[in-house]
């Protein structure tokens, strides 16, 4: 005697299988969308701001306006050591090689 199947049960089983396929499709499309957006750089972290000015060497600004009094002649003469040193540095300065690619 052939066992009869309930048509309603068959519909329920098919519906549950459909949900699996739909879920799989959604996941696959999600992965696809992710890859596409990745291709356009949508998920890249923003590049950190670079300081293009970091190689600059600040030239020291010498105080040119000392108050000249009788008492500070010695101090002023001592300050000439700094000027002497700066002049030597300026004359012997080897600038950074602009043409190097490093």
């Amino acid at each position, binding site marked *: 005697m052939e066992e009869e199947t309930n048509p309603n049960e068959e519909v329920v089983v*098919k519906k549950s299988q*459909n949900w699996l*396929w*739909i879920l*799989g*499709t959604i996941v*696959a*499309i999600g*992965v*696809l969308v992710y*890859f*596409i957006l*990745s*291709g356009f750089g949508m998920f890249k972290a923003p590049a950190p701001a670079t300081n*293009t*000015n970091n*190689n*600059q*060497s*600040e*030239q020291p*600004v*010498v105080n*040119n*306006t000392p108050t*000249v009094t*009788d008492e500070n*002649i*010695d101090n*002023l*003469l*001592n*300050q*000439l050591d700094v*000027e*002497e040193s*700066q*002049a*030597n*540095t*300026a*004359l012997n*300065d080897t*600038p*950074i090689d*602009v*043409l190097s*690619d490093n």
Partner: protein
Amino acid sequence: MINKNLFISILITAGLVVATGIFAAETQTQTPAQKAAAAQAALMVKQKEKAGQEIDRRITFLNNAIEKINAAKKITTEQKTALVSQVQAEIAALQQLKVKINADTDKATLLADRKAIVQQYRIFAVFEPRIAIISYADKILNIADLMDTQTTNADIKAKIADAKTKAQKAITDVLALTPEGYPGNKTILQASKALLTEARKELIDARLLMKQAVTPPSTPATNP
């Protein structure tokens, strides 16, 4: 139902194929010519960036130089004006060069422009020593003037006058220099600096004499 499942399977497979294609496109093997072109472009970007930094460094120096020139007391207004005008002209030219470098598209032009940063403007080879010498000489002249008012001794006054003459000559000589005169004018820069070293020594000697003049003979003079 089978057709529906088949359709969904094809859809998923197609999605995976497309995704794989995107990744494959990113990692696609380039021809040697394409690789060379890409490497050249990347190198030019790097060279432009470095050139820009070097130009900025020079402009910063020149702006500080203007402050030093304006603070000098012993050069004439005309000399200040002329020197500041020169510096401002260099700043403007460097700014134009920076714009040009950023717009360069071939490596030969870029190389020529990068060379110009150093060879045409000579900021650190000529301007920096010039400004340093003028600043140094200006201070010597200031101190010499102050010391001159503090003594009537002829020997001391003679040393002070000699120091002033040397400092003044150093200023006059370096003011006449131009970037185009490099490297020939390096000799003048070195000679001017040597004059200032001598002038400084004369002021120190004069100061010692001044102290000895007011110090009892039994007390040894101290080195300032």
